């Protein structure tokens, strides 16, 4: 009855790979164990839209061509659903590696500015309020390019008429502490 946290039994071992790219604190095997079976790509619902599929990205990493993987922006299509990682017969932390590629693509500005803004706007509202704040997010997301809002007219109207837009900012008592967590994370991870 009930479930203890983490009954997930997988060969994800404890590693801190020296490789810069691999998430510094990977929980799982790194890409060197990948034998290119393609189960990750087969499990990936967005692989069809990627320049390099998850399997190809694991291969690029093995070949030391991570720059190509990062520049392709393919990691930005990862929805972090963990299907690939959960199924990988080699226990490779595929999703977390895709996450690392995604972060590098964003930090090195290989992503469409619109997508960059999406991530920034989302996380900024969490940093400011402790929780996601839709109304502020929409302002931040669309402020630079209000023309895009036109295509969102129907969505916005639906959200408004169905009473789904909360204008008031969420209140979290530890908001200052959460903002401090963001600063600390940037400091530890060496981000600007």
């Amino acid at each position, binding site marked *: 009855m009930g479930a203890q946290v983490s009954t997930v039994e997988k060969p994800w071992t404890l590693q801190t790979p020296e490789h810069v790219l691999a998430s510094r604190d990977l929980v799982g095997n790194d890409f060197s164990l990948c034998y290119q079976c393609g189960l990750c790509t087969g499990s990936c*619902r967005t692989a069809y839209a990627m320049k390099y599929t998850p399997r190809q990205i694991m291969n690029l990493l093995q070949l030391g061509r991570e720059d190509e993987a990062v520049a392709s922006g393919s990691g930005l299509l990862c929805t972090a*659903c963990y299907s690939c990682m959960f199924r990988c017969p080699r226990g490779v932390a595929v999703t977390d590696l895709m996450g*690392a590629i995604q*972060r590098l693509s964003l930090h090195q500005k290989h992503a469409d500015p619109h997508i960059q803004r*999406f991530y920034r706007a*989302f996380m900024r509202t969490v940093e400011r309020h402790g929780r996601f704040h839709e109304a502020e997010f929409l302002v931040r997301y669309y402020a630079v390019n209000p023309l895009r809002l036109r295509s969102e007219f129907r969505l916005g109207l639906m959200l408004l008429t169905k009473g789904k837009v909360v204008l008031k900012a969420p209140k979290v008592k530890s908001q200052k502490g959460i903002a401090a967590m963001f600063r600390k994370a940037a400091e530890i991870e060496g981000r600007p």
Partner: protein
Amino acid sequence: MKYVYYPGCSASGTSKEAEESLQAAMKALGVEWTELEDWNCCGAAVAIGTSYLLSIALPARNLALAERAESDLVTGCSRCFMNLIRAAHYTRKNARVREEVNELLAETGVQYSGKGRLRHLLDVIINDVGLDVVAERVTRPLDGLRVAPYYGCCQGMWTYAQFDSVEDPHCFDQLLATLGAEVVDYPLKTACCGGTLSMSRRSVGANLIGDLLAAAGDADCIVTACPLCLFNLNSFQGEAGRIKGTHFNIPVLFLTQVMGMAFGLPKKALGLQRNAVPVDGLYEKIAAGAAVSSAAAGASRPR
């Protein structure tokens, strides 16, 4: 059983109907809980794209708060559940992650030791409350309603590993059958809806949503166990239809909304007026289904 409840941001805003119906249905089942005090965003699928450490520390803060409250942490959002359980797993397995996460958590005055228990709403309903209790509460069975349960990806991979089959979960089917619905099986029940791609890259997100709607298209409605999936499957049927060269108009409901319908709770308490695709037609289908089954019962009654 003592619970603290974690609503998550999605259920607090764009998927209010999930939250409203969840509170109403759980009250009807006699489940008592308090909201996790001072909870924060779990980072959705966005934090992982900006910071590895935050993608673990943000959900870990909620685990730490629940640990302090000495209660099981329950959430009705699969995305949140996945982030929370990932955080629990990683902080437990990797000493360096644990150390750095706690260094971050110290900024808000809490620490996470990895002890707290995390529960998914479906787990609580099925394993704590029990389907027999759910069945007792049903006053308006969903007769003749063909329902497609959408398990979602996050659930399959981490969530159902806790209490059901990972690749072919059935707990949702059991719950819906208990409510009297006819369960529709379809191939993509554990496939991803695209999560935040519906906002960051609409063409891809809507295509994924279209695949799901088409696969479950045979059903009268789709029922999800995630407020984020609920928002996606409801809000982008127009775009999905344009991509797939068809027209979608499938009601999508949160699991506690259909529970509340079967419990005979008022529509407003279940937030049924908020679903982007109107759900009123479902009541007519249930009434028609009830008429058929009572006629059948009448016909078979011994004279």
